[in-house]
Every structure is written in C-alpha cells, then in structure tokens.
C-alpha cells in the first residue's frame, strides 16, 4: 500500500504535447480511475507512472520515492494490460510466479504464493494449464494474479476489461474492486467506459486533451460536473441554449421560441450554474433525468421545452424518444408509450439542469 504523487507532469511525443502539466495525488489504498475519450492522454499518464513513457517535465513519486527518471524495472508498480500480455510459453503457475522468481524467492515459497493467488482468483486446477488454452476472462485473471503476486506498491490497470465480452466484463469489474479493497492495494485504472469507472473507483479523474478536466468521487462528478465537457462526457449531452440571469437564489430564464420564461431555484436541489451575472448559457440535461408531458399539462416549477416526437425506441424499462425542439433533437426517456408525431413538452426539473456560459462551452469542446 503506497501513495502516488504526480506533479505538473508534461509528456510530448515528437513535438506534440500529450500531457499538459497534470497533477494528481492518489492516497494509499485508493482506487482511482482515469477516464476520458481516446487520445486524451489517460494511457500516457499510466505509462508515465509505470516508466514506459519518458517524461518531459514534472515529477512522479511512489511511496515518497522520486521515480521520475527510473526505468520501469526499478519501479514497484505492476501493470495489467488490455491484451493480457501473458507469456504463451509458460503455464498459468509460471506466469504468476515469474515476478517472484525475479525477486529470488525460494521455490517452495513461490509455489505457496502462486497457490494462494490461484485460490484468490478462482483459478484452482488451472496451474499447469498452458495460458493459451484459457478463456479471455481466465487469462485476464492470470494477468491480475501475476501483478498482485509481487505485492506491488501500485497496481496499474490499462483498460483490462476492454477485450472481454460484456458479461465477463461486468463480473470482473466487481471482482477486481473487491480484491483491491480486500488487499488494500493502491490502484490506478484507465478506462474509456464511464460506467466502469463509476462502479469501480473511489475517485475519478476526467482527462481532456492532456489536462485534468475534473477530479472527484463518482457522485461529485456526476452531480456537479465542473465544465460543459465533463457534463457532456458524463451523459448530460442534451444541450439547449438559453438566455439566463443569475440572482442570489434563482436562475431567471428568459422566454425563447420554444419555451416560456421561468424562474428556477439554485443550489443542491436546484439548478447548477457556473457563471455570474447574465448572458447566454448552454443548459445540459440527461436523457434519463427529464420526462415528457402532454402539450397542455405543464408544471410551473420546471423548464419546459415544446417539441414533437420524431422517433421512438424501447431499450428496456422505459421508452426513449427523439423530440425535435426548434432545429435540435433531444433524447428523452419516459414511462409512457407515445406515438411519433405527438406534440409533447420536455419537462426539465431544476435539479437536472447544468448551465455553463455559452462562450466557454464552445471553447471547451473545440
């Protein structure tokens, strides 16, 4: 169990910057997920921590020891790779025991530790099996066992579940998390899967274009996204432009072509606004946090957008509708069955609204 300090880290590949002064502190025993779309620098950050990517500036310390310029073999990290990276010429037991062999453990102790790992990872009876004969899920378990066997300071997980099929992926999510908590090991997990990050991590680091967009617990980043980018990335990707004025306790929204003027409360149960004064805002809301109402029956305490259903689908549980409002189409979940062509109102409760100044939003997503 050790802590990881990353300070003002800069990494460039052939002139183009991939990481832009990233700072991060992972506490001992904490599970942190690096989340972002492809090319955001999350894997580079992980590989910089493991030592495979040379660093241009900044500092990395593991368990208080500066390892910024140490080669990978001199850092006490263990990586689990997306491609499993098992050695095909070795058995399961040899794969798991290799790190211990490098540490010159006596054979009986290695055998003991390997047996313990096999038990822990539900791989009993597969010790002498060649790893090429194992299923994907079993292979990734072996890779996890190989990393955990050496009891590393930090466990690094590089999209370890991406190559597995959906059911095994869900299973392994919980297993990895349970194992990490039981062993109390510090872990950094790279993923592009939002839900995976949410259910596995203590804290999530959202990266965008080589910089940290937000760090927080899953609930914090979900409920209080710090920027338009984070809001969109975490599912609040219905965006409606509004003219709004912020007062001390309310957000006054001016009437537009498809909605009436409304005054919404601010704060924990109200709308969240990242701007002072007044001006154009981009209001983000999630498909699942709003509902539809018949055109005439609109509640007074919510923002209501008038539109028409253009598409209907049933993904399971609730209906999902495409609703055209002005020139834009929003996706909205609703309990009731409706028909394409119906005139409806999208009812957005204040707590579902995340507003960001429009100009900054445009710059943020560019």
């Amino acid at each position, binding site marked *: 169990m050790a802590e990881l300090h990353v300070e003002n880290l800069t990494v460039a590949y052939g002139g183009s910057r991939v990481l832009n002064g990233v700072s991060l502190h992972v506490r001992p025993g904490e599970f942190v997920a690096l989340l972002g779309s492809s090319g955001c620098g999350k894997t580079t950050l992980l590989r910089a921590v493991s030592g495979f990517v040379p660093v241009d500036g900044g500092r990395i310390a593991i368990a208080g020891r500066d390892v910024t310029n140490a080669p990978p073999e001199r850092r006490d990290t263990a990586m689990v790779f997306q491609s499993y990276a098992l050695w095909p010429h070795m058995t399961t037991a040899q794969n798991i025991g290799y790190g211990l062999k*490098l540490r010159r453990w006596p054979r009986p102790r290695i055998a003991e530790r390997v047996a313990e790992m096999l038990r822990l990872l539900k791989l009993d009876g597969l010790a002498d099996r060649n790893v090429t004969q194992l299923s994907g899920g079993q292979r990734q378990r072996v890779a996890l066992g190989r990393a955990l066997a050496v009891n590393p300071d930090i466990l690094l997980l590089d999209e370890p579940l991406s190559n597995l099929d959906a059911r095994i992926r869900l299973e392994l999510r919980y297993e990895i998390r349970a194992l990490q908590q039981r062993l109390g090991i510090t872990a950094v997990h790279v993923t592009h899967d939002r839900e995976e990050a949410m259910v596995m991590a203590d804290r999530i680091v959202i990266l965008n274009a080589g910089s940290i967009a937000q760090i927080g617990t899953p609930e914090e980043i979900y409920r209080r996204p710090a920027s338009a980018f984070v809001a969109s990335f975490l599912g609040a990707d219905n965006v409606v432009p509004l003219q709004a004025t912020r007062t001390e306790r309310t957000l006054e929204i001016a009437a537009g072509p498809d909605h009436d003027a409304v005054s919404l409360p601010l704060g924990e149960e109200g709308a969240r606004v990242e701007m002072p004064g007044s001006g154009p805002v981009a209001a983000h809301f999630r498909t699942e946090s709003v509902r539809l109402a018949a055109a005439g029956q609109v509640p007074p305490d919510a923002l209501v957008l008038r539109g028409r259903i253009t598409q209907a689908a049933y993904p399971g549980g609730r209906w999902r509708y495409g609703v055209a409002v002005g020139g834009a189409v929003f996706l909205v979940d609703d309990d009731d069955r409706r028909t394409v062509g119906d005139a409806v109102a999208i009812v957005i409760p204040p707590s579902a609204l995340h507003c960001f100044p429009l100009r900054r939003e445009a710059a943020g997503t560019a």
Partner: protein
Amino acid sequence: MSAPLPTEAAGRPAALPRSRGGDGAPALPAARTGPDWLWGVLLVLPALAMVALFFLYPLGLSAVSAFQGRDGGWTLANVVKAFELYSLDMAFTLAIVLLSSALVAVLSVAIGGYLTLGENRVAVTLLRWLYRWPLFIPFIVAAQMMRSFLAKNGLMNNLLIGGGVIEPLQAASLLDWRGVVVTFVWKQTPFVALMVAGAMASLDRSTIEAARDLGAGRLRILAEIVVPQVRPTLVVGLILSFVTMLSVMSVPMMINPNSPTMITVDMAYRINAHGDYGVANALGFVSYAMAGLVGWFYLRHGVRQGGAR
C-alpha cells in the same frame, strides 16, 4: 501450409464438368467423384512433375548409384571406400557446420535482441542497416574476401599490429578450419538474424513490457521471454542454414583445401580427378543423411509445437 491450396482449387472446377455432364444420368455420386478426383490430380500435376523431374529423380539416381558398381551391379564398395578415405572429413564437416550453426544462433539472437530491446536509437538504426549486407554477397566472394582478411599478412593482422594489439611475429594465418567457420558465420548470421528479428518484431510488445514491469533486466527478457517465443523461427532458420553450409564448396575449397576438409571438396575431387561418381555419390549420400537428420529433428520439433497449440 501449401496443402490446402490444391484441394481448395480442385474443389471448385469440379462444378464445371458436373453441369456439363447433366445428361439425365441418375448416378450422380459416381459422376461427381470421377471428375473431382481427376481435376485435382490435373491441377497438381505440373507442380508434381517439376518436383519429380528436377528433385526426386536426380536425388534417387544419385542415392541409387552410390550403391552400384561401375558394372551396374549392387555393391557397398563405394560406401566402404568413402568411409575408409573420408571418415575424418565427414566428422570435420559435421563439426564445422554444427559449430557454425551454434555461433550463428548466438549472434543472430544477439542482433535480433538488440534490434528489439535496444534503447539507443542511433545504434539500433545503424545495426539494422548494416547487418543484412552479407546476405547479398555470394559465398565465393565472401571466401575471397576472407582470404585477404584472415591471411597472415591480411587486413586483420595488419590492423591488430597497427593498433599495437599483437607483435608482428605473433601474426598467424586463420586460413584453416577457423577461417571456414568465420566465413560461414559471417555469411549465414544475417539470414537467420533477419528471420529472428522479424519474429521478434512481431511479438506482442506488451509481453516484453510486462516482464520489464515486474523487474526483469534486458538480458533476462531476451533469454526468458523473447527467445522462447521465437524459438520455432530460430530453429527453422538454423536448419536452413545448416543445410546451406553443408552444401557449400567454394568456402572450404578456397580457405581450407588441405585435409581434413569438407566432403563437398572431396566429392569434387573424386569426380574431377578420378571420374569416380560412385564414391562421390556415396559421399553425397552421407550429406543427405546429415541433412535428413536435422530435417527429422525439425519435423519432430514442428509436430511437438503443433501439439502444444
């Protein structure tokens, strides 16, 4: 590997005669198997004929005539004579080729390993550019070069004397068995290194990174992670170069013509000086036996590899 091709190709044209031969005959199965079989054979025939004519026939003829006297009767005299006169050369040949193969193995793994694991970009680029050159130089030219390089007054000794490493009196010619080994290794290493480096380059990089991450140094990664994974390629490369070196005459002829020498030189001598095809063929038969031995080893190795998968 090439086996599926003729059968696949044979399956398709069979549709042609079937549709043409639709004269209402109900005996479809018989009509189908006949053309199928015929077309298959027809398609394989040209390749088969080439192999038979230019490989199997001369090989068989040479093997058979090793056991025939000048009068055409069966005899073991040629073989007995070959062993009486040249058993030392046979052992010498096997030793030279085995030693060269071993050195080729070590050097090609070293070159491939450096190309795969080396971190000095300039050195890697330079090595990648340099190591293939001997591939394009024929054995006879290589032998000629080595004669001027390894001789007593050759370039190597001149360099060593000029550099103060040895005294002029210590200069010795390497134009004996050592010269043959040096030439073989110089000529064959690039070939095996090319194959091995290719196999190493196509390895999943993360298997190397996983070992480094757990604390393995580069030599250990080469020995325990990289080489075991490219072993089939390495073995194939070594067997091919074993057989090549076994059949080279120019190098021992030019560098080490005195006894003991390699059996290719003896074969040439039996034919050119004595017109003795019988003993030459018996020597050739010994060559086949040596090549056959490694061939058998290769097949056994290949089968075992296939079984593991």
